Structures are given as structure tokens and as C-alpha cells.
């Protein structure tokens, strides 16, 4: 479904090349839970941004359903992110002036159904907090709203960038389990530095200094 072929991401730092990712190759398969594990600064997030089309590789190629992301213009890549991908970021970013349910509906610009947003939030244990504004929710609840937003519209791939970083371990595990349980037929790609969060992953790749250091575990 999504293939990364020898993708590198290079930054310039005072005339020197700094590799965030170096010739990474991997594939995201239908319906799988792919974990990307690595320490801080290993290039996990950069790889996620490359895979989701938020960044363009300096070299190599990323394809989705056989179409290279680099061949798409900005609008097409944005449209792909909106319709085919879901995102959960490290911080539970929500729009402060929208209620929980309205924040979930943001992921469906053509007018998502209130029923599906309500169902998702109910499944995530927020049935009685649909109309709360973000500042009226706890950190864990905010991240669960972000999970609902990522799941809205049944995306084919959900990208989760350290979604447990701002949560305690218990809440973190709960969020990961909910993501995994509610993703339906969508694939889940999650980067983390905490191996305990990937206990239910189908495959895990390890990144060190921008390289994949170990082959797939499964």
C-alpha cells in the first residue's frame, strides 16, 4: 500500500549535511500495526513525516498505491492526507474554540456525520464530554479526542507520532489500545521510543541515527 524506497532526508547545518533519515526502505501493508521504535533523535518522526507526505525526501521515493508522493503537487498531497490518512501527534492539539465533537468533525471537511463522531467519542469513553471545550478536558481526554479525529472517516493509514508522549503510562497504553482496537481496516503506523507501547504491533522496525538497524521483527 505505502512503500518507502531508499528514502533519505538531509538537512543543512552550517554547510554540513545532517541525515535525519538515511536510505530507509520499508512497506506499510493493509490493516497492519507497524511500530517504528527508536531513541530520541533517531529520525522516527522525520520518517513519519516523509511517509505521510508532510515532508519530501531529499532522495529516494515514497509511493502510495503505486503513485509517488513527490510527483504530486501540494494540494494533491494535502488531499491525500485529509482523505486517506489520519494523524495523532505527540501533543493533543485541538482547536480551542471547538467542542470535542466539532474537533472530530474537522477531519471530515465535506461534512462528517455527527453520528459517526458521536460513536467514536463514545467508544473512546467520552460520551458525556462531547460538547466540552478542550480546556475543559484532561490531557488524556484531549488525546482521545485526537484519536477520534484520526479515526474519523476510516482512513487507510493512521500515523501516530509518539501519541503517548504527553500521557502517563497507563493512559498511554489505553490510547494505543484504543487506536489499535478502533482502526478497523486501516493500517496503524506508530513511532515511539517506548517498546511497551508496541506490544500489540504486527511488526516493529528499529531506527538508529536515521537507519533501520534491525529487520522486521515479524
Amino acid at each position, binding site marked *: 500500500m505505502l512503500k518507502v524506497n531508499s528514502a533519505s532526508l538531509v538537512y543543512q547545518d552550517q554547510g554540513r549535511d545532517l541525515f535525519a533519515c538515511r536510505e530507509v526502505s520499508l512497506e506499510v501493508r493493509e490493516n497492519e500495526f507497524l511500530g517504528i521504535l527508536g531513541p530520541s533523535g533517531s529520525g522516527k518522526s522525520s520518517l513519519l*513525516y516523509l511517509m505521510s507526505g508532510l515532508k519530501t525526501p531529499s532522495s529516494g521515493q515514497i509511493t502510495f498505491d503505486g503513485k509517488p508522493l513527490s510527483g504530486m503537487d501540494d494540494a494533491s498531497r494535502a488531499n491525500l*492526507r*485529509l482523505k486517506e490518512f489520519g494523524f495523532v501527534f*505527540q501533543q493533543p492539539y485541538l482547536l480551542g*474554540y*471547538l467542542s470535542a465533537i466539532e*474537533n472530530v468533525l*474537522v477531519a471530515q471537511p465535506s461534512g462528517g456525520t455527527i453520528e459517526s463522531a458521536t460513536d467514536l467519542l463514545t467508544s473512546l469513553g467520552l460520551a458525556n464530554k462531547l460538547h466540552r471545550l478542550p480546556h475543559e478536558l484532561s490531557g488524556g481526554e484531549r488525546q482521545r479526542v485526537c484519536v477520534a479525529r484520526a479515526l474519523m472517516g476510516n482512513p487507510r493509514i493512521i500515523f501516530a507520532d509518539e501519541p503517548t508522549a504527553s500521557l502517563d503510562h497507563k493512559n498511554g497504553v489505553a490510547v494505543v489500545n484504543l487506536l489499535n482496537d478502533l482502526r478497523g481496516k486501516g493500517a496503524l503506523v506508530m513511532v515511539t521510543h517506548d517498546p511497551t507501547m508496541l506490544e500489540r504491533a504486527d511488526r516493529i522496525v528499529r531506527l538508529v541515527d536515521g537507519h533501520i538497524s534491525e529487520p522486521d521483527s515479524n
Partner: protein
Amino acid sequence: MSVRSVDPPAAKTSTGRRVLTRPLAATTYLLRNAGKSIPLTAVIVLAVMLVAGIISMINSIPLSIRVIYNYSREFTGITPRGDAAKTQPILDEIKKKSPISIERIIVCRTTATVVQSIVGKWPFYIAGLEQNDLQYYLDRQGSKSLEGRLPAAGKPEAVISRPVAQNLGLKLGSELLGPEKDDGFSPNSVKVVGIADTERWVMLTSIEYLQDFHFPPIDIGILCAPTPAEQSKLDLWAEKYFKGRPVAVLAYHQVEKDTNDMFATLYQILNVVIGTLVLVITTMMGMLMNIYQSQRLVEFGLLQALGYTKKQLLSRVVIETVFVVVFGWLLGLVAAYGLLNVAKRTLMDPKAFALNVLDPVAYAYSIPLPIAILIVAIATVVLRFRKFDPIGVVERRIV
């Protein structure tokens, strides 16, 4: 796209609460962030009110001149220069030569007094007429009725119109001219015996009284044409006919021309002041917009990361800005209208000062304000979006 939608459609959840099905509609942010949208709107409202108010008040000065001397629309004045005996021969010559029909020729004497204006005292002429011309003159000035009576021949009596009475605080029995009055001297106390109900500014007495007690001893011919159009033609003909001769022709369009010339420099200064005001307010609004948009970087970064394009987000901000600016401008016009009405009632009307609360020029002067604010606000946002990287937001580099 829903992100550009203006009106946020809403539905209800199973709990019956209202939810916006398209939460990124342009009005959502403005309505739910009143703490930000109200100050922005208020600045525009105040600026528009200020500009329209200043222009209206300044325009009231030339408007007052036109209103006070509007009576001269009704006739062409003719007076000889240097030879008081020439009035009648000139009027006889006009009767023979004028290509425009003349309804009536009135012979009058004048003396000067003053009326009050918002910029001080202005000269005003009291016309002394023969008995059979007094009512005709008042009728011609649109008088609907007369409180009191007309001045008797040779008596120190005067008839004035309602605005004059209001302006000078006169009523029946009040003294219009008198031996103690520097601005309106007459050896006798000239009392108001009649107040005519007309919008025009009029002061009349009997010609016999002015002939007996006032100088200079020069009669003026007042030529009255049947219609306003013919009056204008008569003005132009008389000016052309007597050009180069010792005859003064007095016509209303001279008042217009003199007024325009008098205020040309003032309006140039006013343009600079308004231009500076627009610049200051626009800069201030630009800075405010910049601050507010900076506070929304997380929102823009998040939405862009989720899949909204820069163009969509920019369109949304532009529509929001258009809403604020247009709403602020319209509200500013309403506020200006209200303010001018209050000023008219409390400051102007008691003295019969002219003020047009619906002065189109004043409201037109406020148009550059929303346009300039819109341009600066949009330019500010476009510049912000040009170098904007959503990764910086989701990685918390620019939160």
C-alpha cells in the same frame, strides 16, 4: 470546500445539543472568539465614525455658507458702482435688453448685520423693500406663513425668517438693529414685528427706513426671473452684458465659487489629515492582525498537517477578515450617523447651523479605510503563510 463556507451549518446530537457540522466555516472563529473579533471590529467602527464625523462637521462650514446665502438663488442683484443715480437707468436698460423674461424688478436698499456660524460671525444683509414687494419677496423665499406682520413703511421694524430668529435668539418684539449694537447699528431700535416660516435666511425692513437712516445711499436692483433655470440664465447674461462697465452683478453661483475657492486649501489639508489617519489606523490594524494570526499558528499548522491546503486556510482567513472589516465599516457608518444626529440636535439645531447627517462625501471618505485595512491584513497573513511550516507546529518548535 467547507473550510471556506461562510455560514456554519448546525445539527443536533442525540443529547439535543447543537453541533456545527462544518466547524471551520468562516464565521465560527469570529463568533466563538468574541474577545478578539470585537476589538478588531471596534477599532474599525471608531475609525469610520471618526472620519465620517470629521468630514461631516468640516463640510457643515461651506454648507452653512450655502444655506445662509441661499436666498440669493431667487434673484440677480444689480448695483451701480460710484454713481447712485445710475440704478434706475441700468434697470431700464435691462428691461429693454434682457433676452430672458423678468417676472419682477424690485428696488431695494441694504444694510449689514451679522449672523452666528460655527466659525464665528458672518455678515448678513438686511434688505429694505417697498411695501408691495415685501410679501412677494417672502413668498419667493418659500414662506408658508407669517407670525406677526410685515414692517410698516418708514418705521424701525423688521421681518425675519425662522432660522434667523433661531440663530440670533430673536422673537417678536426683540431688537434686530439698534444704536448700542456694534454688529448691527441703526440710530433707532429696529424691532422684530414678523417671523416668516421658511427655511431660507431672510431679514427685511422697509426701504423708506433705510433711505432715511442708513448709508450708503445706493439702491440695488433685484431681478426676479419666473423659474430657477431662467434665473441662472439671467445671472449669466447680466454678468456678460455688464462686463467692463461700472456695474456690480450679484449672483448665487458666485457664492458657490467663492465658497469652493475659500475651502480648497482646507480640503487639501483635510485630505492629508485623513490620509494620515487611514495610514495610522491601517498600520495599527495590521499589527493587531499580525498578533492575532500569530496566536493561531498552532491552528493553522495543525489543519495543514491534517490535510488542509494553504490556499484553503488563507481563503478562510480572508473571508473572516472581510467579515470583520465590512461589518466594522457598516457599523461605523451607523455609529457616525448616530453621532452626527446627536451633534446636530444638541450643537447645531439650537443655532440653526447646517449639518448634513447623511453627507455622502463624508461617508465616501471612510471607504479607503476598510479597503486599506483589508489589503494590509491580507498581506500580513499571506506573508505569514509563505514561510509557514506545519511541521514546526506539530513538533512543538513554534508553539
